């Protein structure tokens, strides 16, 4: 059986779902193929943080663009998406990190992102459970949190309302405008978008995506224990490192009052079993910043795999080795945040129109075999 589509999207995680909605919105005949269920991969494993990050100008641009889109969408989101504009506090443990707070503030300000510097006593008021004294923190009030599987489900439902079709099948191959499914169906498409996270390598061998394992702990409900997303300034060093195992303090309050405790990064750890050493390191770090966290009840521990690229920027755009293939993957820990921005940029590529932010840093071509080596 053959079907002719403007775009077939492989993967209904938050990125695939966001792209499906944008494509359907622009009148493209859109099909989405998902082997498991909507939002079931890395989307389900992550914290659900919508955060502006400044590891590089390109990352800052994409996360800011996307965060603004989420803010605009927030009022339409149903309750089960649990969108909460709690803001992020980048916490400085000492004066050296406080310098980083000021540097960061300048960068954010020049990008048009509002921030506020909290000195020690003000920080203690804003977050009573934080270790006192700490040097201070940078507050980014426009950052938010949400519950990713339901966010992906919402985006997908919007796409389907506009005519997008969902196939619950595994993709065996996707090339030259043909997508073969595991039940023998072949979908014919003008464009194929691979949005299957770390699994993209199965369909495009040699894609420079590696799995980066993370751990999370979720607690019972303690409303008000933590009011903002808390991140230590060393987080960027952890996310920045390309090889070492690392742990960085990151605690997120859910709308339910549950706390998510993270974060960890490991390359080369392919199995999903939680590593007690990593958990211990995470717990130790969390207890340093939040001395009373030790007594809270931890209900569950899980792991997940981020799709990481060598330069920490995602792959958004055409894949040069096949005219029909496009990519929207490699988002590492920023998939939730940048899903909406990714979808806009990707749809702009499909329509051949100018993107709202420069698209060159995210072009997959930078990694193609035919690319000039930089």
């Amino acid at each position, binding site marked *: 059986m053959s079907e002719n589509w403007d775009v077939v999207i492989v993967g209904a995680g938050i990125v695939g779902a966001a792209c499906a909605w944008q494509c359907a919105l622009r009148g493209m005949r859109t099909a989405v193929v998902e082997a498991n*269920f909507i939002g*079931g991969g890395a989307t389900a494993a992550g914290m659900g943080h919508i955060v502006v990050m400044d590891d590089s100008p390109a990352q800052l641009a994409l996360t800011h663009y996307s965060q603004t889109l989420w803010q605009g969408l927030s009022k339409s989101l149903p309750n089960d998406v649990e969108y909460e504009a709690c803001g992020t506090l980048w916490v400085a443990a000492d004066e050296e990190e406080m310098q980083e707070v000021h540097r960061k503030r300048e960068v954010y300000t020049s990008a048009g992102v509002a921030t506020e510097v909290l000195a020690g006593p003000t920080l203690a008021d804003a977050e009573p459970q934080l270790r006192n004294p700490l040097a201070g923190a940078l507050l980014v009030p426009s950052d938010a949190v949400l519950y990713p599987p339901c966010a992906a489900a919402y985006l997908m439902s919007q796409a389907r309302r506009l005519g997008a079709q969902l196939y619950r099948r595994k993709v065996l191959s996707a090339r030259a405008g043909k997508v073969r499914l595991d039940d023998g169906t072949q979908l014919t498409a003008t464009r194929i978008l691979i949005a299957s996270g770390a699994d993209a390598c199965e369909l495009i061998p040699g894609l420079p995506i590696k799995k980066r394992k993370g751990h999370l702990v979720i607690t019972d409900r303690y409303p008000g224990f933590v009011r903002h997303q808390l991140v230590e300034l060393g987080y960027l060093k952890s996310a920045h490192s390309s090889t070492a195992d690392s742990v960085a303090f990151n605690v997120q309050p859910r709308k339910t009052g549950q706390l998510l405790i993270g974060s960890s990064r490991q390359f080369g750890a392919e199995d999903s079993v*939680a590593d007690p050493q990593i*958990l211990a390191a995470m*717990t130790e770090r969390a207890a340093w910043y939040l001395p009373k966290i030790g007594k809270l009840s*931890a209900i*569950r521990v899980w792991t997940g795999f981020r799709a990481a690229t060598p330069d920490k920027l995602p792959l958004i755009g055409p894949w040069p080795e096949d005219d029909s293939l496009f990519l929207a993957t490699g988002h590492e820990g920023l998939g939730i945040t940048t899903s909406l921005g990714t979808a806009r940029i990707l749809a702009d590529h499909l329509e051949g129109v100018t993107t709202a932010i420069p698209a060159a840093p995210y072009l997959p071509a930078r990694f193609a075999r035919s690319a000039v080596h930089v």
Partner: protein
Amino acid sequence: MTERFDILIVGAGPAGIAAAVTAAAAGKRVGLVDDNPAAGGQIWRSVDAQPVAARTWLAKLAASPIVRFQGWRIVDSPSLGVLRAEGNRGCRDLVYNQMVLATGARERFLPFPGWTLPNVMGAGGLDAMVRGGLPIAGKRVVVAGTGPLLLAVAAHLARRGAKIVAICEQAPLRRFVPFLRSLLGEPAKVMQGIEYALSTFGAKISTGCWPVAAGGGEVLETVTLRQGKWQREERCDYLACGFHLVPNLELPALMKCRIHDGFVEVDHLQETSISGVFCAGEPTGIGGVEMALLEGEIAGLAASGKVNEANKLARRRSRRLGFVRALTAVTELDPRLKELAEDATLVCRCEDVSCGRMREHASWREAKLHTRCGMGPCQGRVCGAASEFLFGWDSGSILSSVRPPLYPVQVSSLDHPDKLTYQGDSIEQISMLTSKEIE
């Protein structure tokens, strides 16, 4: 210095007690871990009115040099030979050579409108509460659901002065007829049955009968019972309602013991697929107290190396099995019980997820992620068994998502082993720091 046990036993119900006492009598260094304040499991709870068997075994337990951890929850099995448990002051790694899993069973709860009202409890649930000090004299109680537990509970409550308004067994009467024939080989059971009948004299026993709704404002006030075409409403203070016992398989599953047809696979000497790990009692098959005691003894002997004696007891076990299987077949759940839950009826009580919302999904995992059923503190122990029955979701997939912590633990218990609070205390000192024991 590492404190090591020859045999570590998880669960201080009849099976665990029998295993512990037997192994200690064989001269082994035994540790016994249990999450309740006192030994006895579910069936032997309470300070008074114990059957003879309970008193005998509890006395033997008290007299044995067993290191007891009452009020401790199992967190993890970090590797074979090490069990992590959490007590009042934190975690401790317990090191062992052999293990006996005697984790018992819990009730299956099926949702129906009003089942979440306070004073609607499991049959074993209300029984446990009464043993824990709940006054029941003069209270009106409806006992419903399925299985021999109903009669045992009704008889016990009646002896304590409860007014048993109705006993409702969902299985139809005709199914009991062939079963009664197998009872003839079990005079002890016949006597027990007569004893129950006398205790609950005056209670209306109905078969093919089940609750369809519970009514009330802040607490239970009425229960609507259906039998065939007839429906009646009973005023009551408590509804004790449970549909079978399901084994507590989380720790065996975590330890990767082979599980077959919903029970832990063991050989005739109670050894699981993992060498040195034994399992006794309900997790190997729902069989009641006598079976649990027998299997506990077998496991205790086998783990202690007393294979000949274990073999002798094992022969007794095979004779009991026939009776157990017959009873299980008789009380199979009526499919109409699936229709009791309406769309608005909650299935997941931790996260308040309704039947209607869960029904929209094709699998347990998908429903969990999109509705958060099974993501609360009970981690699917209540709604999982119900979902399996209501929606036909695969129980294997529910079990395969078992991972540590097995029970909620303090965040600090996830920290490095050498920072866990009890470090430096001897095992005996640690075991004493538990809830006060009831003698």
